[in-house]
């Protein structure tokens, strides 16, 4: 198994290697943030908007917290929250999709029509509407985005699983008298994972950007949590003085999404066997 993965990796283009390296380094930073950072996440350590010095490598933010420390903690908060949200979206959407295609009939019809309607409303607008009603905090945001994004996962999971459900081995299992859960766990899910894994990367990017956008608008992850989207918002005035510090958290977001996209692109390419 590992040898096969290594063989594929050796054939991978430069972009894929670059992507994997970036993703790994983000994971390391997220896990070891407290060790790597010179100061605390919300600790006020100096003047406001201090320039880059040896004491504060990337200067300080709008209330005097160390920029570098917050940037490193952001890997844990922003990426962690996006990851949890994507997992939740996959759990809801994947489950519903597999159930819809395995059970079929009315269950499928009802779930599919609900998803159609939810997808007709633009995601950001729907998220904003729901956030107004339930109030803006992190838990609400995670639940809302996971729910809205699960509609996309549902579509794919259902489409993939529908092709599996008609196979003879599923028919055999059905005739043997296996229940729905058994069918999903032992027959349908194992045969639908490959496309779902590539989709996970794409959905993660989408969720990550949506959360960053909401936090940037001040409606997502709330202060004083170190989060890349809100860090850009809080320090944006510096840009008008030609200081690039506020662009760093935005660049951190961009770099990770580029990396994930490169890896997904390579995975899709490798699995489709296309040369074009």
């Amino acid at each position, binding site marked *: 198994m590992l040898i096969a993965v290594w063989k594929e990796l050796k054939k991978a283009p430069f972009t894929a290697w670059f992507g994997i390296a970036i993703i790994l380094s983000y994971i390391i930073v997220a896990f070891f943030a407290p060790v790597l950072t010179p100061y605390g996440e919300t600790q006020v350590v100096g003047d406001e908007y201090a320039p880059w010095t040896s004491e504060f490598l990337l200067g300080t933010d709008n209330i005097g917290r160390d920029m570098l420390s917050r940037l490193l903690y952001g890997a844990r908060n922003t990426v962690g929250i996006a990851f949890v949200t994507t997992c939740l979206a996959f759990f809801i959407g994947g489950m519903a999709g597999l159930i819809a295609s395995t059970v079929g009939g009315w269950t499928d019809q009802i779930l599919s029509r609900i998803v159609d309607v939810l997808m007709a409303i633009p995601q950001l607008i729907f998220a904003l509407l729901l956030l107004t009603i339930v109030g803006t905090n992190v838990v609400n945001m995670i639940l809302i985005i996971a729910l809205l994004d699960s509609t996309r996962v549902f579509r794919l999971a259902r489409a993939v699983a529908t092709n599996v459900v008609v196979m003879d081995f599923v028919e055999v299992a059905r005739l043997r008298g296996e229940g729905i859960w058994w069918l999903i766990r032992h027959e349908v899910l194992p045969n639908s994972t490959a496309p779902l894994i590539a989709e996970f990367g794409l959905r993660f990017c989408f969720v990550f*950007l949506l959360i960053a956008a909401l936090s940037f608008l001040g409606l997502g992850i709330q202060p004083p949590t170190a989060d890349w989207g809100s860090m850009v918002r809080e320090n944006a005035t510096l840009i008008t003085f030609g200081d690039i510090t506020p662009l760093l958290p935005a660049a951190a977001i961009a770099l990770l999404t580029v990396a994930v996209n490169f890896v997904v692109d390579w995975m899709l390419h490798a699995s489709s066997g296309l040369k074009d």
Partner: protein
Amino acid sequence: MWPILRMVIQRLGLGLLTLFVVSVIIFSSVEFLPGDLAQEILGQAATPETVAAFRKELGLDRPPVERYFTWLGNVAQGDFGKSLANNREISELIGQRLLNTLFLAGFAATIAVPLAITLGVLAALYRNTLFDRMINVFTLTSISFPEFFVAYILILFFAVNWGLFPSISNIGPETSFWDKVYRTMLPAITLTLVVVAHMMRMTRAAIINLLASPYIEMARLKGIKPGRVIVKHALPNALAPIINVVAINLAYLVVGVVVVEVVFVYPGLGQLLVDSVSKRDITVVQASSLVFAATYILLNLTADVLSILTNPRLLHPR
């Protein structure tokens, strides 16, 4: 001709149905509040009598179905009710801002659509060359960038370092057309960069798909130049998917303006929406969500209908 007309009418009917369901969702979302709107606005400190009186003033004492149809009837006549935050007529707040948002989205589209199609055709023409791979990396990158990152990079270079365009797109109803174009240049470029990638990739894919067809082979064997084969023979047949993706991206543009408007302090509908969300001004949020959702649905519907109308196989049934 008849089957195609029936398909179009079916799509239109489906679109109207979606619009109706969406309006029900937007209206009834408020019903899920823990208390109700009156309680929410007045807060916990209000006496039951004031809450009851306010409830009556908002019409909350009537059954939801009746309120929905009254609301829908008023919305159809352009009356969205009043803002909870400052008691102003919502239609007054929205009117000019909607025009501004549509101006920005339209401006971005006039740059983005020709650019995307040209790049897509070029990428298909020079496929698998260095140029194609560079465009592929560039588009993957621009899809991955958050909108505010692109916006601030543009501000840093074009506004702060070189002083070419203003970093704040402050326009009013009396601003002249060219002045508007000048002031909205940076937000329009930002939006362009965001949507070009997707449109370009679809154009390239649609054309490359066709290049294996026998009539392209024939054209090639006749000795026609590769550029002419693509523009004259492949492009017209790839139009349906291209028109579709263009319309979908226009729909995305109208919605995608939200973040960009906030960055450039542009007086559009998106900014109003964000402000109202943080103020929890529910009636304004409802109204602007409805306007956004309706525009989005209508543009997607247009995409559907156009892709039916431009499909040669449907137009000339045997």
